[in-house]
């Protein structure tokens, strides 16, 4: 393969797929962060020592999250195809991939944020109770603001996990850089393409991690 062919490939195939990957990451991270946060708040609130202990609810959430997290991602994609069809109307393509990405991402983020939120000093929560703050205020005015830097660095970890998952989603028809690496690189024995996708992915990971670290330092 000569020089022009490679640059053609990069421009015509890899660049649009890079955009697909970025789109999947951004959309799934945003949705996962929202659902994950809701789950995490529900977990810490209903926990035995939480603000409003609800053993049954807590147990159900716990089982649900553990259940989702036990699926290998590639199996999860296939297993929830009916749900994906119901939501997006198709099981192939970038938007279809976002459904399993969000489901697994939410469970992952829920666990990370749960432990971030638990880190907040219980004495601080007691102090808030002592001046008559409501549970809602304790969560949104005390716990979340206090844990915010850790939440951001938790999301950074999740973004990179989601990036890994998008590559896997590529293998089953979602598009994105993963699909390029597998179909053009791996299946066509084209090492140039395979390794250049890997290099792009490495650069993406480094960028995401640096941004996360920067934000953490700024917020702390």
């Amino acid at each position: 393969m000569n020089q022009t062919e490679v640059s053609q490939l990069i421009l015509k195939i890899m660049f649009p797929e890079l955009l697909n990957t970025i789109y999947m990451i951004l959309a799934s991270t945003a949705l996962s962060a929202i659902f994950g946060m809701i789950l995490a708040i529900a977990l810490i609130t209903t926990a035995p020592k939480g603000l409003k202990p609800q053993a049954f609810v807590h147990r159900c959430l716990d089982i649900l999250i553990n259940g989702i997290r036990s699926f290998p991602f590639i199996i999860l994609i296939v297993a929830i195809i009916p749900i994906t069809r119901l939501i997006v109307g198709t099981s192939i393509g970038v938007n279809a991939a976002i459904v399993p990405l969000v489901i697994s991402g939410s469970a992952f983020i829920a666990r990370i944020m749960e432990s971030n939120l638990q880190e907040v000093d219980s004495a601080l929560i007691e102090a808030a109770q002592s001046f008559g703050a409501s549970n809602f205020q304790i969560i949104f005015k005390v716990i979340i603001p206090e844990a915010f830097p850790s939440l951001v660095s938790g999301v950074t970890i999740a973004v990179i996990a989601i990036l890994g998952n998008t590559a896997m989603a590529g293998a089953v028809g979602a598009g994105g850089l993963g699909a390029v690496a597998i179909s053009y690189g791996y299946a066509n024995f084209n090492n140039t393409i395979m390794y250049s996708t890997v290099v792009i992915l490495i650069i993406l990971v480094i960028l995401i991690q640096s941004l996360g670290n920067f934000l953490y330092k700024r917020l702390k």
Partner: protein
Amino acid sequence: MIEISDLKKSYKNKTVLKGINLSIEAGEIYGLIGRSGAGKSTLLRCINGLENYHEGSLSVNGVEVKQILGKDLRVFRKNMGMIFQHFSLMERKTVYQNIALPMACWGYSREEIDKRVKELIKIIDLEDKLYERPHSLSGGQKQRVAIARALSLDPDILLCDEITSALDPKTEQNILQLLRKINEELHKTIIIVTHQMSVVKEVCHKICILEQGEIRVNGNVENIFISQPDALRNLLGEEEVPLPKDGVNIRIIYTGDNVNDRVISDMCQKWNVGFSLIWGKTERYRDTFLGVTVINIDEENLPIVERYIGELNLRWEVLKNESN
């Protein structure tokens, strides 16, 4: 103001409070004293409903705390500021925001909050740190901020849980001075949980000593110091001084101005009574001095000493000697 009668609480099998009877008047600084695990912090948390109790009654201004629920409990807590051992400030917020937090939760307007925070920062004397974050403050400064936060809703009662235990002695004195100022100038009733005698001496009007969930002694600080009950000695970890077996041992208690009098040396010179000094100390309690001395004299001198000390109007007693 606060009436506690026969209050009982237990965790699983362990009884933490075994029938507490206590009454705290408005305007007092009341100390709940005891070693760790005596139940004093639990008792304090029962007062603002952070802990529940199983039996007995605890009423604040005539209202039974156990019966206050939900939103009412939050409103009830507005009237009680609480201060903690490790300050419990929000690390990511400025001093200003920390002090403003209770008011923000209760929906005060921006102007009201601003006015109040600036008033409070003057009381705690930290005007130059208003926009700093807690990590750049010293322990004493953090506790001042916590005090300002506790005062922000203008409560009648301040609950203090070991608030000087994490501070060095000098800073502790400053914080205690501030508490006294708050008591005297803002007329707040203050309830202090502590294991430090220094706190009792500096600020408390009345105390009760708790041991294993029971009140051993309670009352006026001076009286307790004068009568030196076992519970006090236990708390201080003082060993009982072995008394000489021969002669008579006398404990003399000085209060206020008597501390400076040359009571015993005058006794020697005027009446020619010899003595040996067994034990003694002088301490300051709030603004008065209290001294205790134990001396040993010959038995035949007892009537002289009795008359002499009696004339001076000092409190004194003959200590029982076990061998006699």
